[in-house]
């Protein structure tokens, strides 16, 4: 007797990705480089966040051809992005047999109020979150994995750090609260109280929490791991750098050995140019992707 796609199986799959690096790729060639470098999964998309930022316009789910090309090229899991609230893009990705759907603020949102109800879809979902309330709402909708939003396409880790610190602070608040304070906390956060209860049972978020948004160097990856993330997404940081394979390998090794400074020195050598970064303060409010999501 087999029961497919239970929440335990979705969540369990995310557990298997822990300690790993998930890399954005736009074609089969990049996917091969990512696999060769030791990525645990690739995210197939049409344009990496730095280019979406530069080129503007409406950003949508990747073309079916690109996704299938990547799926046929690598043996590691393949993820793809759907727009926030665009449940039909999610249905298409499910039908394609993608391994994970990222309901992502990097794409232009399709719904300014609602996210996708993720329980009904067989494919597991990862969602971005800036704080504990947002994370709990997404888990309540059925997300099997959470990531920081960071500020994608900037090569600037400051927002990812902000989101992770805020998450940890929220979790500590939930853990130290009196039983009588829990519903008020839930009200404050806009979080389902059932998810807060799971946090109290396990002492952590009930699903895996990765770092994402602005990670560009091995040191950035190790920083996020030391802050308590379970693994790392790297978007523009690899294929916008001078030597993608070298940098990808270095970030993979740094993510495993995040608490070993000697190793971090070793992998930080001879990496070539990192991607050019953007100061968050130089962004107009409307250009901040982390603001998307509700």
């Amino acid at each position, binding site marked *: 007797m087999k029961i497919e796609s239970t929440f*335990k199986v979705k969540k*369990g799959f995310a557990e298997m*990705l822990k300690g*790993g690096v998930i890399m954005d790729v736009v074609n089969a060639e990049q996917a091969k480089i990512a*696999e060769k470098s030791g990525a645990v999964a690739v995210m197939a998309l049409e344009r990496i966040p730095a280019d979406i930022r530069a080129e503007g316009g409406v950003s949508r789910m990747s073309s079916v051809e690109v996704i299938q090309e990547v799926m046929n090229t690598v*043996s590691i*899991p393949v993820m793809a992005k759907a727009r926030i609230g665009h449940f039909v893009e999610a249905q298409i990705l499910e039908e394609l047999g993608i391994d994970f759907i990222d309901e992502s603020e990097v794409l232009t949102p399709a719904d300014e109020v609602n996210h996708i109800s993720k329980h009904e879809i067989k494919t597991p979902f990862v969602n971005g979150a800036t704080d504990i309330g947002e994370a709990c709402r997404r888990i309540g909708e059925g997300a099997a994995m959470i990531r920081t939003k960071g500020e994608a396409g900037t090569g600037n880790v400051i927002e990812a750090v902000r989101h992770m610190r805020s998450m940890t602070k929220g979790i500590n608040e939930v853990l130290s609260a009196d039983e009588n304070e829990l519903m008020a906390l839930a009200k404050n956060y806009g979080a389902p109280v059932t998810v807060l209860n799971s946090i109290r049972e396990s002492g952590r978020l009930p699903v895996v929490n990765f770092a994402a948004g602005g990670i560009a160097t091995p040191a950035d990856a190790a920083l996020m791991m030391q802050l308590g993330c379970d693994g790392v997404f790297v978007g523009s940081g690899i294929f916008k750098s001078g030597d993608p394979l070298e940098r990808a390998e270095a970030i*993979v090794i740094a993510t495993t050995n995040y608490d070993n400074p000697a190793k971090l020195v070793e992998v930080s050598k001879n990496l070539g140019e990192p991607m050019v970064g953007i100061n968050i303060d130089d962004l107009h409010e409307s250009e901040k992707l982390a603001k998307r999501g509700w």
Partner: protein
Amino acid sequence: MKTGILALQGSFQEHLESLKLIERDFILIRTVDDLEEVGSIILPGGESTSMIKIQENNDLFNHLKIKILTGIPTLGTCAGLILLAKNSILGKSTLNILDCDIERNGYGRQNQSFEGKVQFNNFNDNYCFIRAPKITSVGSGVKVIAKMEDEIVGVQSNNIVGLTFHPELNNEQNYLNWLDNFVMKGLNVGAL
């Protein structure tokens, strides 16, 4: 002696929880030095291609293989089994010490991942199969220790056990008892 859990990537934290529940000392294996005080080994689930790549950095698998060949109890789950089996991934050989053939992602992609009822040793439970491998044939001297209906989902060869599923995501008492006997006390090692 401690139980070493390969901690390059994957579900090593869940295996660590299992060991805590049976009150055993453990060490996370990331470098060759970590193998020194190890008396049994667990290879977790995760992505086998990633683990193979990450260990190249310090030649860990050659040392790990020597350690396992001394006969210490060794358990591999899912990707851990793939690493133990006679196999190659992206043209690179794995540990290559468990005589069985493996088909990676044997059931398909993540949408085909499932929970299934497994007869494991003398108990049964529902376990997660996540982009799981299939054991397509076993060599002589390899014993079948877990089945899902007629399908082989767990094998043992002397001190080495490989499972295609994830008992570490359940950590129920039957499994913990088995783990305590096998990995910690060395019971059933080579004796079955």
